[in-house]
Every structure is written in structure tokens, then in C-alpha cells.
């Protein structure tokens, strides 16, 4: 059979968000792969420099629906660093707990999606049922299942009350036990192994060269975790292992994530034990002094980097966001090359992509000539009026 151009997206059932992937296939084998991103560019960075620091908090929360807490936390960390503010200790512990809650919910969500991608619907149903436990806990603590709006400049919005702590402990014990069960399934269920073992292989060296982060990097045997390498909040006080795997494939990434769920449960329990009494937030100045700061945290998908520059007013001059998906995309293309068509969805899903988070710019290209052009605001408004 001749080589066939095989498009995936912008609309495709395996993709939850619009993105265009182009594959060159020879029979069932993928010869080459390329990606076009920019379909969900929302111009968040630009909007950040149009609004004040408090409004940006809400904007950053909406960079991603899954790692919403990680983004606000990272943004607050950067702004607080510029302002030179030290937030109350109890607030730091609560931020850590929220951070780990979000890791649990995100990794469980990913495990379900991975099951769906390889046609293992039952895994999807079971994992998402168990995920409801952590969703309920998140709702109890913050009032929301999705965008928690828990982090604020100068601390956190709500305290964790003593009666919540027992419920959280029960939930965590249940989730820990379920995570162990899923780790067992991942290593013993034959069809699951057939579809994940040796699939989407990318070596640790390539990962480092291509700048991969998070579970993708760790599953290729590189022990890099921002929580351990550059501790923030109180991460230097809790004990947790940096989970790595030498398998370099989808199975390795699955195991790393499932084990991180177990670790996250343990970290939360430690936090609940070590959390001191006290205030959970403080007054934060409306105007932030001139300066700039970079903050990095280990979100569930990998390292998120925020760069914020202030010019002394209440509006930041520049907010730059680097999401883990963007860092992992080059590695994901390497994963699918030389593999089977059937492995494309699971190999791509194994980086836990979030394309809307990754889209930072969009370039308008003429399809036939390849020329790029710029559209002004007025032109865009005109276009939208004509189309609607």
C-alpha cells in the first residue's frame, strides 16, 4: 500500500480538544508525524496585562480546567515573590494539600482516559467512579468541583475545619487502596499490557534533549521533580519518593502516575498531621512593587513555569506561562514515529495533553502559499461580525 496521509483532528474522538496531527502512514505503520497547534488560542497572556493582579488570578485559573489550582498557585507564588510577601504557614500547608488533591484527581482522570483510548471501557468507568471521592473532598474543602478558586494572593480562601479532616482521611485511605488495586491491574491484565508495554517508547536522553517534563520524563528514568529539586511551600518537610520507571513506555508512565496517586495520599496525610494552627490568609497590597519573578511548580502533568513582571502599578506588565503540554509535545511526536496507527491515541494520551493550555500564539498561514499574515483587532471584529 502506498503512503497515506492520515489526519487526526482538529475534530477526532480520541482528542478532547481541537488540534491537528498529521501522520504519514505505510499500511499500519507510522512513518512520520507532525503537529499543528493554535486552534484554541485564547490570548490569556495578553489579557493578563490588561487586568489587575487580582483579576489575573481568575484568568490564570482558567488556563486549564484540570490543573486550575496549579496555575493560580504558581501565579500567586510569582507575584508574592515580587512583593516579597511571606504567606502564613498554615496557608502554605493548605496550598500543598490542594496541590496534591488536584494531582490525585488529575491522575485518576488520566487513567480512565487511557483505558478509554485502548478500548478498555470498564477501567474508565471504575476509575471515574472512584474519582468522585476526591471530587467530593475538593467540593467540601473549596465549594467547587472544578475551578476551586482556593488560592488567593496572600494565602488561601478557606480553612480546613477539624470535622473535614476525618472525612478527608477516610477518603484518602480509600483512594490509596484503590490506586494500589489499579497498579495491580496495570501490571497483570494481559490485554492492558499488550497495548501499553513497549508502546510509545522514548529514551531518557531524548526526553532531556526535547525538554520533556513531569511523569513523561520520570517514566524514562530521569529523576526530576520540582517538588524535590527546587522545593517550594513546605515540600522540604514532607517525605515522598520521586517515582521513576526504566520502562520508557506507556506502561511506565501509567505506573509512575498511579504510584504518584499513592504518594499524594501519603503527602496529604503528612500535611494534615504537621499543619500548625493559625491564619490562612493575610492582606495583600493592591499595587505590587517594580520587579520580576519566575515561579516553577510540579503540576500533575509536569513543570509549570510562570514569569511575572511588574512596573509598580496594580497591573502586571507581562505574564508568561509555560505549560507542561507544550514541553512534552516534541517528545510525544517521537513516541508515535515507527509505531502502529493503533498506538497513536494511547501514545499521545500518555503525555496527558491539554492543548488549550499549550496554545500561546496563533499564526495565520495561507494553506496554498504558506505566507503568514497579521490581523488587527478591527479586522478580527469585522470577521466575527461577518461570520455570525
Amino acid at each position, binding site marked *: 500500500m502506498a503512503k497515506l496521509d492520515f489526519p487526526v483532528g482538529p475534530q477526532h474522538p480520541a482528542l478532547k480538544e481541537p488540534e491537528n496531527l498529521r501522520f504519514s502512514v505505510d499500511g499500519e505503520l507510522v512513518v512520520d508525524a507532525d503537529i499543528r497547534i493554535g486552534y484554541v488560542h485564547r490570548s490569556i497572556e495578553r489579557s493578563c496585562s490588561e487586568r489587575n493582579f487580582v483579576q489575573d488570578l481568575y484568568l490564570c485559573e482558567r488556563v486549564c480546567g484540570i490543573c486550575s489550582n496549579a496555575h493560580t498557585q504558581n501565579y500567586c507564588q510569582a507575584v508574592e515573590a515580587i512583593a516579597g510577601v511571606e504567606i502564613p504557614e498554615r496557608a502554605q500547608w493548605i496550598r500543598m494539600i490542594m496541590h496534591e488533591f488536584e494531582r490525585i484527581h488529575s491522575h485518576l482522570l488520566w487513567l480512565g482516559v487511557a483505558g*478509554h483510548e485502548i*478500548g478498555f471501557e470498564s477501567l474508565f468507568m471504575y476509575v471515574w467512579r472512584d474519582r468522585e471521592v476526591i471530587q467530593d473532598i475538593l467540593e467540601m474543602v473549596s465549594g467547587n468541583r472544578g475551578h476551586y478558586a482556593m488560592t488567593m494572593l496572600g494565602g488561601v480562601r478557606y480553612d480546613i475545619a477539624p470535622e473535614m479532616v476525618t472525612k478527608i482521611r477516610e477518603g484518602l485511605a480509600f483512594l490509596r487502596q484503590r490506586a494500589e488495586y489499579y497498579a495491580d491491574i496495570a501490571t497483570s491484565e494481559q*490485554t492492558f499490557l499488550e497495548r501499553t508495554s513497549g508502546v510509545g517508547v522514548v529514551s531518557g536522553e531524548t526526553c532531556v534533549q526535547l525538554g520533556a517534563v513531569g511523569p513523561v520524563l520520570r517514566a524514562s528514568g530521569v529523576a526530576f521533580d520540582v517538588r524535590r529539586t527546587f522545593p517550594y511551600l513546605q515540600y522540604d518537610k514532607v517525605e515522598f519518593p520521586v517515582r521513576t520507571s526504566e520502562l520508557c513506555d506507556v506502561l511506565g508512565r501509567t505506573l509512575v502516575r498511579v504510584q504518584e496517586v499513592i504518594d499524594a495520599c501519603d503527602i496529604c496525610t503528612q500535611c494534615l498531621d504537621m499543619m500548625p494552627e493559625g491564619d490562612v490568609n493575610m492582606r495583600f497590597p493592591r499595587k505590587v512593587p517594580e520587579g520580576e519573578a519566575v515561579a516553577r511548580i510540579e503540576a500533575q502533568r509536569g513543570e509549570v513555569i510562570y514569569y511575572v513582571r511588574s512596573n509598580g502599578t496594580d497591573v502586571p506588565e507581562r505574564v508568561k506561562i509555560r505549560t507542561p503540554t507544550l514541553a512534552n509535545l516534541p517528545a510525544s511526536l517521537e513516541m508515535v514515529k515507527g509505531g*502502529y*496507527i*493503533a498506538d*497513536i491515541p494511547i501514545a499521545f494520551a500518555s503525555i496527558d495533553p491539554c492543548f488549550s493550555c499549550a496554545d500561546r500564539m496563533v499564526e495565520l498561514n495561507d494553506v496554498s502559499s504558506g505566507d503568514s499574515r497579521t490581523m488587527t483587532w478591527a479586522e478580527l471584529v469585522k470577521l466575527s461580525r461577518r461570520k455570525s
Partner: protein
Amino acid sequence: MQVLTPLFHVFVFPGFLFLIAFGLFASWVDRKLVAKMQNRVGPPLIQPFADLIKLLAKEDIIPESANRAMFAVAPLVAFAGVVASAIYVPMWSAQAANSFQGDLIVVIYLLTLPAFALFLGGWYSTNPFATIGATRVLSQLFGYEVPFFLACLGPALAGGSWSISEITAAQADGGWFIAAAPLSFIVAMIALIGKLERVPFDIPQAKTEIVSGPEVEYTGKRLALWKLSFLAETIVASALIAALFLGGPHFWGIPFGDMPAWLAGLVGLIVLAVKILLIVFFLSLTRAALARIRIDQMVEWCLLWLGIPALVNLGIIIFTMS
């Protein structure tokens, strides 16, 4: 009457209407069972019927670049093949609506028609997903068809006939051929999953990879026809396995000889329906418990782990008979 009886067999029972009604019911059973296994509520009884009516009402689109004739005819051929094969499979007594020496071979070939039609329909729709799905249909066919045929040879040899009705009649004393050909039975059941393109062998359809493979360009009533073809094939192929291995309508303790003909027919149909639903239960179980494997893994695994046991069982039957 002599003209009406064959027409009744083709259009009402065990043909067209019966296959659609029972096929939709079996699909509801399947969906409900899988839902229960996955901790969901599952659809109401009316759901498969509602889905069918909705599809029939939808717009029918033929892609511009497709070969119109092949694209339009493929689902009809598939459905016609399945309905035709139903006439030779015993549905209410050991005797099918029609039978002759060699109808086993005919039925096996007629049941292969949907796969070929699916390949042609997908290939001529010229969509890249459909093209890849179509080649997968054929690759998969080589994986399950040979073991399925070898497995059906087991009861044929044990019953000493090429007619399904005679093979079923030979089990009327209670000596089901599942005892003589247990390996063949297991092979036939697993090959059936491949034939019906269900998890873990739903590779040609693979919705997260190639959307729905060869069916991707089909809409409206033609898509409904595809769905119906596979539902009807589920019934006919399950009935075939029940007739070959599980004694067809026979069950111990039911005195078919003492009943009037209409009652014997009704009881026989009910017994067979239960057996078909048990096979559907097995299909649901595998769908809930397993993940979809890759086409290369499927073909390799099927030829090795289905082909060889089927041959071994054939050898045992031939050795014990001589």
C-alpha cells in the same frame, strides 16, 4: 400456501422481522449487561428500537468521491447475506426452514459476506479512516475465519454430515457436541468475537483510533442497515454455534415428541433463545473485561491460539471415530 411458506421464512420468521426484533432485544441485553458490569445504569428496553428509528429518519449522505453503486449496495449485500443464512440454521426444531447436504458451508460463507461488504463499502468511500478500517477488516478476516471454519468442522465430523439440521438432529439424544469438541467450541466462541467485531477484536471499528473505520462515511438508513446486519449476524452466528455444539433447541427433560407441533416449536424457540442469550452474555463479559488489542497481535494470536487447538480437536475426533 406453498408460495407463502418460503416468503414467510424469508420475511417474517426466522428471516427479516424476527432477526431485527430479536437482534435489537439481544443488543439491549448486551448493553444492559455491560452497563451493570461497569457500574452504570444502562439503557431502557426501548433504546435500541429508538436508536434504529432515529437513524432511519436521518439524512442519507453519499460522499462525492465515493463509488456510488458500491457504497450504496454494500450494506444491502451484508444484510441480505445474513438473512439468507438464517433460513438454513435451525431456530425452532432440529429441522431448519430449509436444508440440504452442504448447507453448513453455505451458511459459513454467507456469514462472511458482511465482512467483505464492509471492506468494499469502506474502501469505495475513499475516506482515509475507512480505507485503513477496510484493510483491517480483511486482515482480521484471515485471523478468525480459518479457525472458525475448522471449529465448525468438529461437529460436522462428529455428526457425520454437512447439513446443520442433521448435525443438530444427531444431538437429540442429549449428546451435545460440546462434549466431543470442547476445544472447537471455545475456538468458535472466540472467533465469533472477531466475526462480530467486538472488544477485544473491534479493531476495524476502533472508535478512538479510526473513528468507526469502514462505517465512517455512512449515515442514516445505510448506517442503520450496517448496525442491523451485525445485530442479525450476532443472532444467526450464535444460533449456528448453539445448533452445532449445544444441541440446538434440545434440552434434557423437555419431551418434544409428546407435544403438539406448535408447542414443540415454541418451546424449542425459547430454549434456543436462552442459549443465544447465554452466548450474548459471554460476548458482553469479554467486552467489559478486556481492552482492544492491535491488528498484528490479533492475527498472530488467533492463528496460533485458535488455529492449533481447533486442529488438535479435529485430530482427536477423527482418531476416536476410526
